[in-house]
């Protein structure tokens, strides 16, 4: 089995940089463009994401998640951080497009990334209002308040939906984490 790209980067293999950019450059750029309003912000974010990747490749644990999911996590963290300080983007996609039935879009990643498929299945298990809230956060890049304003769901309920929705996805993906938050939190 070939050594993972992130493992090679963690070991200081500069040749792995090109492989990483080939494999994940489009993914990182797409996440940034999806969530940030202007191209300059997105390009800044992409550069910062890859610096984060170079520095933290050693933290990748293949028993927890795939490289794709790990890199998407780093990209989301950085882009969300950027959103807080840049022009927040509320997705220009229609709300209906953001909250459509999970897994029905025929995305290639659902076929190739195990966690994507499992996450789609987990979303299907959620109550529609919980799923809607999670999709608006993650696909729409919205804040708690923006979701409450858009959907009319009370702010406290939005937060509860987010918490329970993520706990359920985490559970389906087998991401135990380091803290036991109890089964009742994930109960629907």
């Amino acid at each position, binding site marked *: 089995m070939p050594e993972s790209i992130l493992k090679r980067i963690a070991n200081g293999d500069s040749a792995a940089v090109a492989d990483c950019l080939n494999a994940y450059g489009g993914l990182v750029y797409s996440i940034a463009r999806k969530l940030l309003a202007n191209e300059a912000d997105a390009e800044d974010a992409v550069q910062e994401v890859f610096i984060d990747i170079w520095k933290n490749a050693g933290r990748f644990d293949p028993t927890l*998640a795939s490289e794709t999911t790990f890199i998407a996590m780093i990209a989301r963290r950085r882009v969300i951080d950027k959103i807080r300080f840049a022009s927040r983007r509320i997705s220009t996609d229609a709300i209906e497009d953001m909250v459509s039935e999970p897994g029905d879009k025929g995305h290639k990643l659902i076929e190739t990334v195990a966690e994507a498929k499992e996450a789609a299945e987990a979303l299907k298990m959620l109550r529609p209002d919980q799923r809607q809230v999670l999709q608006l956060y993650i696909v729409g890049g919205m804040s708690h308040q923006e979701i409450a304003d858009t959907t009319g769901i009370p702010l406290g309920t939005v937060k509860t939906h987010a918490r329970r929705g993520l706990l359920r996805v985490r559970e389906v993906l087998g991401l135990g984490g380091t803290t036991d938050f109890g089964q009742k939190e994930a109960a629907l």
Partner: protein
Amino acid sequence: MTEKERDILLDLLTKQATEGLSVAESKQLAALEGSDDDSFDLAAAAVMLAEFEPVEELPSHLRAKIAADAPAFVDQNAEQFLPKDESTIPAPDRKTPMFAWLGWAVAAAAVVALTLNITMTRFGVTEVARRVDPTPTQTPMSPAEAFDEMMAEPGMTVAKWTPAAKEGDMAHVTGAVVWSDKQQKGYVKVQGLPKNDPSASTYQLWIFEENQGDKTPIDGGTFNISSDGQVVIPIDAKLTAKNPSMFAVTVEKPGGVVISKREKVAALAKVETSVPPNA
């Protein structure tokens, strides 16, 4: 962990994975046991992968810049596993973390400390680990922070922006540019440039320096202005720039040009030796 701490941890991990944390919340999370739990962020990332298709390719100019910058970081990964004396241990280089890298940074410091302990103990040297400062160091700086840091460094080339025209919508340009020959990097901080429509035009930076001469200044990269406020942009010099004498911003067609006709010059920044470091 108390029930209350567990609830706070759950709320903060959820918020981190959805809308992000403020600096104060990041500090609060970092202080809690279990703050390095990535499972919520991984779950959110998996949902994102399930919900959208990456369709955009990394632009070639951006890819080139990332690839050019990468060795400085990737090579350090290799060095972390080699024996080092005290003088080669990287010093903390960052300020307050903008989000919760604390756990990661502490873990990285611990790896370095362990490696040093094992290596140096083998050679009869003790108490090496205490020399490693575990202060978090890993969050990359924003362009604005990097600009401020470079401005505070000695030996930088610094120039102030002045409008190219006394009248019109570009007559109130202010700001500064900072450049390092040694590091071959720099930043432009500018205010007062009108917003541009990227589909119609772009701003382009030019570096007048001694290698290329004044007739063929070096392309310093293109940028767009989308707000009225101040912007800070990294300089993307396409060639090695040496001893710049002036920087210029022109308005060009989308994507920029190889050689500017200088038909619309927005701002100039002449390097003055008398410009103080913190101008």
